[in-house]
């Protein structure tokens, strides 16, 4: 399927290249035309001068009446004037007589050359004319004519014609050389343009690579030196990234501060009435319970909202998993659990460390809660159908497990969070929600030894 061509989507490289090539072609073509015209004029003038030499020779001989040779009465010395229809002719016409007398070269073979004057060719110097005519042999001829008046009052019109093919031939060979060299020039210009565009746009493509690396999470800043004209862009991008991180950090801090601010007085209220059994105390207990759940639930939402649109973050999973292992071994000291982890090397989650710890923390906490002896954490890398890499965490325990119908219920709860009753569940709905925010997924399965097996798919770097 052809994608619709759109000028606005044309790359800068193509724009520069196309405009440079179009301009050079127009300029080269124009220059070629001008040069051809100049050369044609020059060739005609040179040809005319040659013909003029013959005219002067004829005029000189006419004046001296030195007509000796039948074949070359005016001593032009060019055999072509004696070859019939050679394309080279002369003709002398007496003017001012009632019946003009015409003598002409043998080559004209009894034909006549027309008068340029009658063909409306303008004269210069008052007496000379040049122009093209069609000769007796249907050939194009260059004709030069001049009116001569001798002191005795006799007037002649001397005409010399030469084969115009000669002019055309020189012009043609010139044009051939001209267009060949201009073509080569255009080619050379294209090649240098390509080079210039590539070289000139190199910093831009480097910038775009850097931004790509940030998107993929393998880098957190645009680094390296850029030319003066685009380094402000790189600086702006870095600034934006910093601002983005700052906003996120601030949102988190504020959420945390709010939590702290609300939860401490809640603790006080709950404990103040803990020993009392009056209607007021019961009401306070009930309401503080609701408040606690509401606070927790909205804090989770606020945290999730603060996560939207984070780019350029990557988290090494190994230290995160190790930290959680240490934590859970301490929390579940009394259960004497073993936590095994089997992580593919160098895995990186494309997202915030806190979020990874939240998701894995809930999964492992759940596993530890139900496990009898052992919890196993595995992580491996995969490449998705759209070539995006992702990580699959596999957290399984040897506890009682969950029947299939309950599994879907636990996951579903994440899907319609608005209707979720806060404060209930296995913490798995939070995991499912968070995973979805990252374009991942949580699925539940049964482990080989009957326990619950949670599969968490997350984007990788």
């Amino acid at each position, binding site marked *: 399927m052809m994608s619709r061509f759109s000028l606005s989507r044309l790359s800068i490289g193509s724009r520069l290249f196309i405009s440079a090539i179009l301009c050079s072609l127009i300029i080269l073509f124009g220059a070629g035309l001008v040069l051809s015209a100049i050369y044609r004029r020059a060739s005609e003038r040179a040809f005319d001068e040659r013909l003029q030499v013959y005219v002067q020779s004829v005029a000189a001989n006419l004046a001296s009446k030195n007509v000796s040779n039948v074949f070359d009465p005016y001593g032009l010395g060019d055999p072509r004037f004696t070859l019939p229809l050679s394309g080279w002719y002369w003709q002398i016409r007496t003017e001012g007589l009632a019946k003009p007398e015409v003598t002409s070269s043998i080559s004209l073979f009894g034909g006549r050359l027309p008068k340029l004057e009658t063909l409306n060719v303008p004269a210069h110097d008052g007496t000379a004319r040049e122009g093209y005519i069609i000769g007796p042999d249907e050939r194009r001829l260059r004709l030069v004519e001049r009116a001569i008046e001798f002191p005795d009052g006799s007037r002649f019109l001397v005409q010399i014609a030469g084969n115009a093919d000669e002019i055309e031939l020189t012009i043609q060979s010139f044009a051939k050389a001209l267009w060949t060299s201009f073509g080569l020039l255009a080619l050379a210009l294209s090649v240098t343009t390509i080079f210039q565009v590539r070289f000139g746009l190199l910093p831009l493509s480097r910038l775009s690579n850097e931004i790509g690396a940030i998107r993929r999470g393998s880098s957190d800043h645009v680094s390296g030196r850029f030319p003066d004209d685009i380094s402000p862009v790189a600086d702006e991008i870095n600034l934006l990234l910093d601002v983005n991180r700052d906003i996120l950090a601030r949102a988190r801090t504020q959420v945390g501060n709010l939590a702290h601010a609300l939860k401490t007085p*809640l*603790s006080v209220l709950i404990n103040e009435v803990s020993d009392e059994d009056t209607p007021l105390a019961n009401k306070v207990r009930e309401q503080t319970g609701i408040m606690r759940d509401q606070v927790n639930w909205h804090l989770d939402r606020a945290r999730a909202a603060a996560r939207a649109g984070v780019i350029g973050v990557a988290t090494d999973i190994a230290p995160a998993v190790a930290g959680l292992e240490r934590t859970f071994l301490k929390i579940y000291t009394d259960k004497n659990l073993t936590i095994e982890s089997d992580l593919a090397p160098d895995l990186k989650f494309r997202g915030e*460390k*806190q979020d990874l710890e939240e998701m894995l923390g809930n999964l492992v906490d759940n596993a530890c809660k139900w496990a009898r002896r052992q919890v196993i954490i595995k992580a491996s890398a995969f490449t998705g159908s759209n070539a995006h890499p992702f990580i699959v965490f596999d957290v399984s325990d040897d506890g009682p497990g969950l029947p299939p119908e309950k599994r879907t219920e636990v996951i579903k709860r994440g899907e319609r969070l608005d209707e979720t009753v806060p404060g209930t569940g296995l913490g798995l709905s939070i995991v499912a929600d968070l995973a979805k925010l990252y374009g991942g997924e949580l699925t539940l399965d049964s482990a080989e030894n009957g326990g619950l097996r949670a599969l968490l798919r997350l984007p990788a770097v």
Partner: protein
Amino acid sequence: MRLLVVEDDKDLNRQLVKALSQAGYAVDSALDGEEGQFLGETEPYDAVILDLGLPKIDGVKVLESWREAGRVMPVLVLTARDAWSDKVKSFDAGADDYVTKPFHIEEILARLRALVRRASGHASSDLVCGPVRVDTRSGRVLVDGEAIRLTSHEYRLMSYLMHHVGRIISRTELVEHLYDQDFDRDSNTIEVFVGRLRKKLGIDVIKTIRGLGYVLEPPAPPSA
């Protein structure tokens, strides 16, 4: 058992101190990180309840400084921040357990009992020494299955001895672990309490090691 409560909210601090004292602990309290850090470094506590959001010095820093100074008492961390990343941070700083606000005091009491028990190497909440049995959950003391009534000071002494069966405990140690810092520390009162306790127990389990202190041991099996 002597505890330290570091919590900046005055009401919550008061409630904790009250509830813990009622449960038979000697309790010191601090309202900010600086005071808390100082007390934890200088006084021998059997456990600490530490809030993380403290003025002056942050709770995590206080905890880290204690661990760096080689203080190994169990620490129960109290915080409003319930994200796993916060929990990992606290445990890595040296916390032993974690309770998120808002909480019920009962939860704190249960966690504390477990921490103290674990710290002295006991697996069960029932401490047993021969015919004597102390149920740390209910605070009851039984001799041959019969409950005996103890005052809170007597229970504290009994509970501390039961947590360290077979170890010689000096009078100074007892004073340090049984009374909070405001108590008039006269080691003679210890002798008075030990005497009363022996009388109430009715059997000879608390032995005096002259010049060293006391040791709790199961009575020798009756020789033929």
